């Protein structure tokens, strides 16, 4: 009884969609029916009944193939507008039988999983890309399977929404350049302190060109950058807001990179990097209205 109750519950969860092969089955059934009926050919009748019965029996087997699959959207790496990111979905077969011929769809992404043995979690990485900041989601997270006979597409939708946050595109003047400019303006640039790895965010004027001959390109680090005072950023809302958000995002990322704390003032609210965390602050920027 339990089996049937469970089967009916599962059946409700799993959608079934006929494929082109099912059209072929219908045509085959029609042709076989004509041949069998008109000539009373029992061999043809038997093939006809087999085709029908196999197509019929494939349903429960296909449903039970997906019935024990649990999907969870784990989350994504930081996704910046205009840039890509990676999201993770785990699949877990809680049943006792291996699930076969699965395809995980998330938006445009598709990952094929030939078999999913029971009890072993399977992690799938999906690429994501967004144009603008804010909340985004994979349009339709689902597992599909054509198992066993390809005549029906069994679809199991994920309970969770595959949602992730897209941070503003980190764009603008680099923190180093900005602070350098600020320091030059106040004659406070200070002394050249040492070399650090060039990661592309620093101004070209800071590149330590002799390092070109080495394997790693380096840039000069100035004393003012390691000063203990935390940078304080303010969302002024004076210019183009998107541009400003992008600028702030860039500085926040740079601060994280060089390991300095900062504060961000947004609409009178002050957020501290060591308290709210970088992701929290970036989320505030992403969802800023």
């Amino acid at each position, binding site marked *: 009884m339990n089996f049937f109750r469970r089967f009916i519950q599962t059946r409700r969860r799993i959608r079934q969609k006929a*494929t*082109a*092969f099912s059209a*072929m089955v219908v045509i*085959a059934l029609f*042709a*076989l029916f004509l*041949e069998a*009926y*008109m*000539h*009373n*050919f*029992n*061999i*043809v*009748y*038997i*093939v006809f*009944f*087999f085709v*029908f*019965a*196999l197509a*019929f*029996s*494939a349903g*429960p*087997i296909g449903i039970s193939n997906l019935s024990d699959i649990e999907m969870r959207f784990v989350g994504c790496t930081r996704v910046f507008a205009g840039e890509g990111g990676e999201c993770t979905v785990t699949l877990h077969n809680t049943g*006792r*039988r*291996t699930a*076969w*011929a699965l395809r995980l769809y998330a938006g445009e992404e598709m990952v094929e999983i*030939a*078999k999913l043995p*029971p009890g072993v979690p399977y992690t799938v990485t999906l690429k994501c890309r967004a144009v603008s900041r804010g909340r985004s989601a994979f349009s339709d997270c689902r597992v599909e399977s*054509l*198992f*066993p*006979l*390809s005549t029906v597409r069994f679809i199991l939708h994920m309970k969770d929404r595959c949602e992730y946050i897209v941070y503003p595109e980190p764009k603008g003047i680099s923190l180093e350049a900005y602070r350098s400019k600020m320091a030059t303006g106040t004659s406070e640039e200070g002394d050249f302190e040492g070399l650090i790895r060039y990661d592309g965010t620093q101004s070209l004027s800071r590149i330590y060109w002799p390092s070109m001959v080495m394997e790693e390109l380096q840039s000069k680090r100035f004393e003012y950058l390691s000063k203990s005072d935390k940078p304080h950023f303010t969302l002024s809302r004076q210019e183009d807001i998107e541009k400003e958000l992008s600028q702030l995002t860039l500085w926040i990322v740079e601060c994280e990179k060089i390991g300095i704390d900062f504060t961000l003032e947004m609409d009178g609210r002050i957020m501290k990097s060591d308290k709210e965390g970088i992701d929290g602050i970036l989320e505030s920027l992403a969802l800023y209205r």
Partner: protein
Amino acid sequence: MEYSNHSHSTDRESRLLDLALATVSIPLLFIIKLPMLIYIAIWALFLFLKKSDELSAIAIFSLFTLGSLAIFISLFGEFNFAGLSRLRLYTELVLYILILAITLQRAVGKINFYLVISPFLLLSLTLFFYDSLTMMAYVVTEVFILIWIILTHRMKSDWYESLGISVRLFAFSIPWVVLLFIFFPRISFEHASYGFRGDGTARVGHDGSMSVDDRTLTILSDKIVMEVWFEKSTPPSSSLYFRGSVLYEKRGRKWLPYNRYIYSSSRSRFANPSLYGKIGSVSVYRVSLYPTHKRWLYLLDLPIEGPRDSYINPDFETINRNLISEPVFYEATSALKYEYGEATSPKRLQKALRLDRRFDRRTIQTGEKIASQSHSAKEKADRIWRFFSDMNLTYSLKPEGVDIDNSSDSFLFDIKKGYCVHFASAFTIMARAAGIPARVVTGYKGDRKNSIDRYLVVRERDAHAWCELYIDGKWLRYDPTATASHIESGSVEVIDRGDGVSGDGAGEEIFSGVYLLYLKYKLERWLLHYSHVRQVYLLEKLRKDPLFALYFLTAIALIFSLSVSIAMRFGRPRCKNRPVCLIERLIKRMEREGIYRERGESVHSLIGRYLSRYPDDENLKEIDRIYHEILYADRDIDPSSLKRRIESFISHMKKRDRG
């Protein structure tokens, strides 16, 4: 739809497709003509030898030309406008074109949609050509193999893994197939008569005439001529005379019928009632007659009603309108007790008295002598019978030395050896000489030894000849072969299977052979020839006979449970880690006690929870210890001790439940 369209297929896909094509092609190899077979062989060789996936246009064109030529030669002479209407030829042409298309596409190396469905097309075409139990069994096997191949492709798995699922799927579908086969509404169209019907070899034993010579009887084959199913019960052996043709005239070594041509003015499938008198013991039976390439249908004496498209002539021969070049199935009615002959025309009686006095003089003289000593025709016949019995005749299949011109004299007075033909011929001549109109009847003589239940099998070697004597206005059957005093050793086997006299034989061997034939016949009746009539009969029986209905439902339930158990057996996950599998049994048992393993919970913790309820269970503590030792100890530990402990624990739990 998934297939490697417009791209070169993978080796795996190609292999699977080749396998599917090979599976469905096997029955076709017995049908297709030699030129096509040669073309296929060349194509296979070509595929084997080709080095690159890309194929030049010249190579493709050459294959196409070769294939087209093979089709042309295969159908040369057969194909004309009249031929177009012949379904078999048309199907054959379609088959050849399909083969050509498949081979060309396969040579190109691209698997497209049409190539994917080609095994199914070939399978459906095969169904046009065969109608036998063997083919039915093969088709079911084919369906299974195709499912297995589809699943192997779909699952991208090894053969063993997909086998399990295939068996499950197949097992689930069997009960539905059975139910549909029985209950799917049929209409009463006739069984198709196209296609190759399997064995088309002509059966011998009866050809409408009879040769009396000294040649060894060559009709020794066990080949089945007909299978008979009686509506009520199988009649006694003495009534199992299947009438073929009636012969009046001995010309040289041959006995010939009344008319050279078997056509008759009578065109009715019913015997003319004016030709027979009292009849009794009417028997209705169904006959499966295998190809004889003649027109006679064999009905028991005395035929009353023949099948459609046949007619019964004044000699009670049953003639089919067409040559029997493929198995025919008919129902017939005969009267086993009968009187007939009063309406026999004087012309016919005159012919039944005709003698060629130039030959068989001694036989004729004996007949005349017997006639002079007797008062009535019955007495004459009895005296002739006694004469035959007293002549110490030997039944022999090798009556060497028979004088062809005087075969009866030679048989009766010189070599005293012969088989049914010699007995019947000599008896007829002697009866005629005694003034009794007589004729030879040829056909088959059944024997209840070849019968089970209501089934009777008649083989070539059951071909027989007997006589009919016109006594007191009636034709009476006399089977003079029964007067044989001895049976030659080499002939015992044949006699055991008919021919009118009895001998000792390998009864059990015959019975087992007949039993297999009976099974085959039953299967053919209920599987190959299941029809609207049988369906109605079955439903009626289910309605009227509660015991039968009970048996029927039990059988269906058994099929269902068998299918489910097979599906479960093959659906069970394979145990790869023995201790884990052993502990699974324990966990399941605990679930019955209401202790469920939580997600992520270790076995140790679960056992701990159980022990908190039953703290004195030392066995369980030991199971916990052994299990973890097997899993984590550096040395190998035999899991059998764990198995024993678990079994003992489970049986202890069961006892506790019962207590």
